[in-house]
């Protein structure tokens, strides 16, 4: 950026914008170009707040209701984890606990940390912070696992009138948390992590000149 060049997220080509322009298009692949992702921190924060709001009903409302002749029973995500816990099922139970409860909350906290450190102009632990970002990016998709668990449980257990399972209202909020945090990750521009240090360096050079 300090050289006035823009790199393309579509194909990686580095090019020079028209004089005075802040936006352009990539001559090779036609992608829209900017120096940094537009309103990156604001959009990341907006998605994070929305995700945090949805996180509450996602964990409190039932995601599944089981109807049997004896009555019906609703389970939240956490109750699903507990139900799965058995001498043979405990590894899967741990996976669901990790994917559905730990990952979404860790993702929100990690991204909040990244946004705040960038806002504060931190120049420390840059390499670790960008590694954290990449980890969040890779691990995040696995949160969807509970959505698929519920989908296939619901679609298989349709043995009316003996037993049937239907999705609960928590499922929509849970899916929203997963999608919103994925969008938050996409909106964050990791290059912002390095900008504070680069700005400091330029200022230093100007003072010495």
């Amino acid at each position: 950026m300090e050289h006035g060049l823009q790199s393309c997220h579509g194909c990686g080509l580095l090019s020079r914008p028209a004089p005075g322009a802040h936006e352009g298009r990539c001559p090779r692949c036609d992608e829209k170009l900017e120096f940094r992702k537009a309103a990156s921190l604001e959009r990341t924060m907006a998605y994070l707040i929305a995700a945090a709001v949805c996180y509450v009903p996602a964990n409190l409302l039932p995601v599944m209701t089981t109807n049997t002749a004896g009555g019906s029973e609703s389970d939240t995500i956490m109750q699903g984890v507990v139900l799965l816990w058995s001498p043979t099922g405990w590894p899967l139970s741990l996976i669901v606990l990790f994917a559905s409860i730990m990952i979404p909350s860790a993702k929100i906290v990690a991204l909040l940390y990244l946004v705040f450190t960038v806002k504060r102009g931190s120049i420390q632990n840059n390499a670790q912070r960008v590694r954290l970002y990449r980890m969040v990016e890779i691990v995040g998709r696995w949160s969807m696992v509970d959505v698929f668990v519920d989908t296939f449980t619901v679609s298989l257990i349709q043995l009316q009138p003996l037993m049937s399972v239907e999705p609960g209202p928590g499922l929509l909020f849970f899916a929203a948390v997963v999608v919103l945090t994925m969008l938050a990750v996409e909106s964050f521009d990791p290059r912002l992590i390095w900008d504070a240090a680069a700005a400091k360096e330029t200022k230093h050079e100007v003072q010495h000149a």
Partner: protein
Amino acid sequence: MEIQHHHTDCNRPLADGSLVACLDCDLLQRIPEVPPGASVRCPRCDKELWRHKPDSLNRTFALTLAALVLYLIANTVPMLGIHAAGREAFTTVVGGARQLWLDGQQIVSVLVLFAAVISPALQIGFLLLIVIGCQWERPPAWVGLFLRHLHFTRTWSMIEVMLLGVLVALTKIADYATVILGTALFALFALVVLLAAIQSTFDPREVWQRVRWAEPEAEISQVENAEVKS
């Protein structure tokens, strides 16, 4: 020499085509030519900038064709079934999304369909079009269009996550009923392996270096610059 463009918002290429800025930390650097199998990493943030994959396009073509066949099988035959109380019931991936829709969860249903059926189809389709387009010496500009959007289809294609979900669902259901594994389930397992293999054989940089540019005049100017330099 100043080059005139029809489109004023189009950026001008640099004279040195091997110069890049790391997409994770913006460090300006040159990508060196490395032998097949080796990779180039950003010295500052350790992002992998390029991995030189040997025989990339031929291998990707073969793997993608196999993936297409498996995808078609996975979405036409039953995936799971149960046997309980003298009755049998089967479902497919689309059937799972359909039941959610009928139960009033339309939004989640569309999301499941998108992540497990539509995105993988787009991913396989885009890859096929890219490798077919690369049979030309200079692949046409639409190859670049599909390659540019390939990342999006990969982000939202979640077959491997779905399989883990199926495994958990089966464990739960096994308490009430006998579970029957369908052919589609095995096809999906193989598809996950193939998609991972494609990921490690496909080299986008090779395509980008050959593809015709969206802005032909800018491309000509880069060639001229390179000649002047050498």
